[in-house]
């Protein structure tokens, strides 16, 4: 039986309150299409039954699954050319100088999905330290990737990609340099991959366990979130980003209306959010 307006509204409210995801008017159909498999999996015959199951579950696992289902994870290597040129020319030298001066640098790839963003960054870092003839600097850099989905994190940890995934933005020279073929999969440099730690993590949780960072990438995820959750998330990101360091969002994503903890600047189509020195 198709879901009624009442059931949609119930579920929409749940998704907004518990998952921090806002569904625009007219996007209600997404509720049913994205949750259909989960409803079968949990043996729920109607959206209302599913809603009550989600409401009453204590572990939070179903809530995470709903959040994951409502957010699509499309990942690319080096997504958005101007940004990666900026990262290569400005961010990486900044991070390496910092690693030299302060002894350690920590980077967060939040909502890392299957790892392409973290590994893209690592390839650039690897090239940069070699160019500077300071390969030992790489030991001072720690990259953490988080995602809400075990499937995604498993793929990220395995660092194996299908030819489909490889076609999405990976330049030929990087493919030759950092990947080898195993069966029909492409395997990322197994030594290099050890430098990234992937963790199962819901952005709604407390960030205290993550530590502080010198660069945060949190791209193409806030787009789904409700205003309340955006506000909360940006303030948590401000807490863990060191002063003077940069937060990078997806193209078109903005924190302007939600926090004043960052200075916003523009560099050739790239928007940067720099953590202010003093918290206001």
């Amino acid at each position, binding site marked *: 039986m198709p879901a009624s307006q009442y059931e949609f509204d119930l579920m929409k409210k749940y998704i907004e309150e518990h998952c921090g995801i806002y569904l625009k008017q007219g996007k209600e159909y997404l509720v049913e299409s994205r949750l259909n*498999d989960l409803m*079968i999996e949990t043996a729920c015959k109607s959206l209302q039954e599913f809603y009550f199951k989600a409401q009453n579950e204590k572990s939070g696992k179903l809530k995470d*699954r709903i959040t994951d289902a409502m957010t699509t994870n499309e990942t690319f290597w080096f997504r958005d050319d101007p940004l990666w040129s900026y990262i290569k020319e400005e961010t990486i030298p900044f991070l390496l100088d910092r690693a030299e001066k302060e002894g350690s640098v920590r980077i967060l790839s939040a909502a890392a999905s299957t790892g392409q963003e973290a590994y893209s960054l690592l390839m650039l870092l690897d090239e940069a330290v070699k160019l500077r003839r300071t390969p030992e600097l790489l030991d001072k850099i720690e990259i953490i990737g988080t995602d809400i989905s075990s499937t995604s994190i*498993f*793929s990220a940890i*395995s660092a*194996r990609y299908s030819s489909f995934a490889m076609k999405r933005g990976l330049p030929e020279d990087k493919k030759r340099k950092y990947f080898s073929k195993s*069966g*029909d999969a*492409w395997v990322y440099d197994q030594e290099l991959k050890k430098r990234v730690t992937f963790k199962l993590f819901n952005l709604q949780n407390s960030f205290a366990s993550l530590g502080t960072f010198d660069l945060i990438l949190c791209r193409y995820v806030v787009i789904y979130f409700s205003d309340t959750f955006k506000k909360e998330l940006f303030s948590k990101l401000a807490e863990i980003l060191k002063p003077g360091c940069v937060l990078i969002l997806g193209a078109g994503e903005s924190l302007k209306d939600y926090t004043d903890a960052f200075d916003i600047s523009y560099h050739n189509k790239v928007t940067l959010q720099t953590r202010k020195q003093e918290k206001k």
Partner: protein
Amino acid sequence: MREMILDLLSKKGDLPPFPEVLRKLQEMINDPNSSIAKIEKVIELDPVLSGSILKLSNSAFYGLGRQKVEKLSLAINKLGLKTIKQIAFSLKLTGLFNKKNVLNYLTFWRHSLSVAISSQHLSRYTNIPKQLLDIAYLSGLMHDVGIMVFSYLIPEKYESFLHTLEEKEEPIQIREKEHFGIDHQELGALFIEKWWKVNPKIIHTVRYHHFPFQGTEEEQQCAQLINVADGLCNNSGFSNGIDCFHEVFKEGAWENLGLSLSDAESIIEDVRNAVDQAVELLKL
């Protein structure tokens, strides 16, 4: 097109029959009154199979100590009936569907065998009951058989269908359903049900290996184990050889089986070993 395919299936055509030696072996193993001597006789009727079993019992994977195993009865005794059955199924089934085919049948069977073996390794990290492992192994071997059935019943149509897969990033079973009105899970299950007569739990797993959340708890566990093993083999680069988007595994299957990301690295290693083992078996 569904009706046409089902009609062809009911006539069987040149679809391979279930190997007689496996049928007898299944019967005997299930019969509490049968003896090792009787089982030995059944296997002996197939000289290639008995030779391979002897070879395997002296190989690195199944090595039974320094003493060379020269008699089949000793191999059966030492390996145990469960392993003998699994080896017999592995060797006989992977010899089927080898007529000129649109698929690379060696790659196909390497995948199926890798899934079967991976399911056994993977079970160590899960809460799956031990008595299901044998069913899981055989289900792993047969899980994609519907793809072979497609390519036997409608070879040209299936081949042109395979060429369209590259265009979209969507799992094959969805595309098959759109295109033919039936997917390889259902077709494989119907084929086995009608012509092969194996344990119904195997048929259930074949039918639901891409969406393993139907049926009894045991049926779901078995289908979930194969779903994850299948996804792991795809992820490792040892898919069934069809150039299309391959899913990893279902999040719910991973969770329900009690798998943990802290075991990810050793699971990846185990899958790699399972693939090596499959390659060795296929050389026999």
